[in-house]
């Protein structure tokens, strides 16, 4: 895919992804995709009083997938679980200033990983 189609924001997050890595004791954790599909995304969240205090992510995927993961971590840090559950693929794409059409599924990967992480947290803490 042509990189010229990527916005400045995408390029910034791609070259300098925020909140990369894993949390040692996450409240919730979500992984979606697998290497045989071409991309993998993992999001760990640390939740205190219903607020996402810390978040880390990892991606094996293209520039759009990496930027989407990074942007997602920025958008959810400090927000309540209720707010984060409302985060959509389109929110991420808008924040990134847009993505090439064939790359939109990459941001879906991030929202799916987040959803899984939140579910994991809620399951562990018997709440919803």
């Amino acid at each position, binding site marked *: *895919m042509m*990189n010229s189609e*990527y916005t400045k924001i995408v*390029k910034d997050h*791609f*070259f300098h*992804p925020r909140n*990369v*890595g*894993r949390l040692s004791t996450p409240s919730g954790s979500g*992984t979606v995709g697998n*290497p*045989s*599909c*071409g*991309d*993998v*995304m*993992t999001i760990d969240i640390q939740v205190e009083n219903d607020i996402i205090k810390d978040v880390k992510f*990892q*991606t*094996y*995927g*293209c*520039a759009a*997938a*990496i930027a989407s993961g990074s942007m997602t971590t920025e958008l959810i840090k400090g927000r309540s679980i209720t707010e984060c559950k409302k985060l959509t693929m389109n929110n991420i794409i808008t924040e990134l200033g847009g993505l090439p059409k*064939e*790359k939109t*599924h990459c941001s879906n990967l991030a929202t799916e990983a987040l959803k899984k992480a939140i579910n994991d947290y809620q399951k562990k803490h018997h709440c919803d």
Partner: protein
Amino acid sequence: MKEVYLDYAASTPVDPEVIKTMNPYFLEIYGNPSSTHQKGLEASKGVENAREQVASCFNVSPETILFTSGGTEADNLALKGIAFQYSPHDLDDGSHIITSTIEHPAVLNTCKQLEAYGYNVTYLPVDKTGIIDLDQLEETISKDTLLISIMYANNEIGTIEPVKEIGKIAHKHDVLFHTDAVQAVGKIPIDLSSLPIDLLSVSSHKIYGPKGVGALYHNLGISFDPLLQGGGHEQGKRSGTLNTPGIVGLGKACELSQKRLQKDISHLKKLRDYLIDQLREIEASTLNGHPTKRLVNNVHYRFKAVEGNALHSRLNEQGVYIATGSACSSKKILPSHVLIALGLTVEEAISSARFTVGRLTTTEDIDYIVPILKESINNLRLISPLWNQQ
């Protein structure tokens, strides 16, 4: 920003000498080569001179060279031109064609089309280095086999097929042999007077010639159905007004490629091996393809846990241009059919990248890109969930 182009297998810049040869054919010698007036005759002279240049490059007679719009058309013409002379069900077991699983889409998709028409196609597998099995080839030949089409050298991994042996087997069974030599020309000496090859596809823009022109060599005894009907150009085998500037460009490019062949080979080989030596220092990384039966300009490497498209994007932003074989579809990343045919996992295939050097590549270029490449790989591994599992 400094730019380093390492995608010569995709295309090459046109040689200034080629441009110089082409230029008069736009403004001065613009006649239709089929016209019999002076303007036409001059153009026709240019075309016939180019035919001789191409023929001489392969040590064959000019009548065996047919000009096309490129490698893709040459492949289509060879396969369909032969197949269409037979109805798909003419022969007892159906008219049969043999090819390999790692062919260029120009051959693979033509075979798929022929299959849809009812022809019988066998796709030979390859070993983990990309080479077909000659015994299996011979076993696959039946009395209804019309044609074998196996590439001279693979465009992705650079593996060189045993074309001489393939041709011998084909001829032993009275089967025609076509080879797509688009990547091989200019990197391997090809003397068609001593090789058992009946049809061979050539592309101009891979050998420092212009885009939109190619050639099909065909043994004179062979007849085939034309793909294009029209004014009966090229002895009725390929209608359409001849692309005079393109054709004289291809002719010159062939002449130069023949003249520089030994120089080019040693230059490319030196750079290829230099790059491979540097890549060996990167941990958990492997050369794809064959260690020695390999095009002199091809380096195809896989880097554990590094997604190829991401690597491609990082390098692109830094002015380093490479290729990956995988394509991004709407749902997932599609790995290269060639790498999958070698037996690589999807993850291994997607974590691969192709670097192809050319005439203009220098040792300084390699020295420049290696640190950028290493930094990119390190950074992508830091982000990658697959690297942690190491």
